[in-house]
């Protein structure tokens, strides 16, 4: 099921399958536990828009080496033009920041060149430096800084919003 155009060196993205209910803790967004029965129900609730773009598209981020799900990403669309990414990385990972950074390196060119989205926006905590470096290397702009928006065990850090702006769309904006 791995999408050939969303496959990198250490992670790839794919559509969610029914068996993913067993590993929901890795890809489901949010700090609270979710069991397989609830994950199965939820997957049916969210996968009801096969041909539309009214519901976020959801993908599993899996490790190339062993196909283990290590996270999830949702892509919400507005007007089929503006995309919003939300990442959830498995809480047991040591290298979450690096794997999310690699997922971002797959997602941004796809959203810009394949889906031709006008903008792609996502939020990142100020201490998620590998993801920030990846965003900036991809040409994303930091368009907002929300002070103290993320709670950490030893204090708070800022949340940044990054946007990829699709240059060809600028033409009509002149």
């Amino acid at each position: 099921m791995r999408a050939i155009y969303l496959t990198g060196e250490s992670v790839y993205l794919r559509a969610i399958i029914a068996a993913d209910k067993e590993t929901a803790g890795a890809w489901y967004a949010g700090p609270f536990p979710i069991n397989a029965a609830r994950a199965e129900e939820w997957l049916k609730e969210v996968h009801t828009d096969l041909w539309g773009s009214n519901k976020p598209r959801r993908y599993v981020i899996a490790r190339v080496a062993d196909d283990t799900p290590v996270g999830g990403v949702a892509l919400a669309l507005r007007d089929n033009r503006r995309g919003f990414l939300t990442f959830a990385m498995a809480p047991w990972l040591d290298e979450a920041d690096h794997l999310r950074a690699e997922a971002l390196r797959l997602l941004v060119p796809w959203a810009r060149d394949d889906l031709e989205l006008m903008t792609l926006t996502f939020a990142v905590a100020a201490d998620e430096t590998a993801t920030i470096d990846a965003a900036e290397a991809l040409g994303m702009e930091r368009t907002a800084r929300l002070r103290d928006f993320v709670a950490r065990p030893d204090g708070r850090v800022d949340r940044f919003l990054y946007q990829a702006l699709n240059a060809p769309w600028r033409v009509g904006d002149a």
Partner: protein
Amino acid sequence: MRNPLMVGERVYLRALELEDGETLARYAAEESDTFMYRGRQPQSPIEFEIWLKDAYKANPPPYVEFAVCLRADDRLIGNMGIGDLDWVNRIGETGSYLGAAFRNSGLGTEAKHLLLEYGFERLHLHAIMSTVFEANTRSSAALAKQGYRPAGRLRWTDVKGGVYRDLLVFDLLREEWLAARDAWRATRAGADRGVALPR
């Protein structure tokens, strides 16, 4: 006052009731300002009623929404709330709407201070944000007065006049809100108590 939760000098906040949908739909129909968003749209009282049936079910809720009412005669003048509540990071996003006749007389700012007091001092939120379509200069002016700080701009968010425009982002910490409220109270101290309210 009917079922008040936060009480100010001229306005109070209470939970929205099902029948409030009728008034809110009327305010949408009577909208006279065109600069704030991409365009005006009629809203059905049925939509409001369906929304309000569920709006107070979840506990803790994903958002809190209030009716803004006049103390003088209990009239509903608009609604205001904190959305995208994140109970782990203790953050949320405020949003406000007053019927056209009730704008520009400081009622929105008075209500907002009640809402922020609720957010910071009852929910113990740490930080609050707000977003404003850049054409909505009145809303930005009101936020600045209430202590919010510019936090950036999300590019190319919606169309106005055939051009994609930005969404301005603001944030606010409790200390900044307290300072803004003190400043606002100082300006209100000598204010005429007999402000004429729309009929």
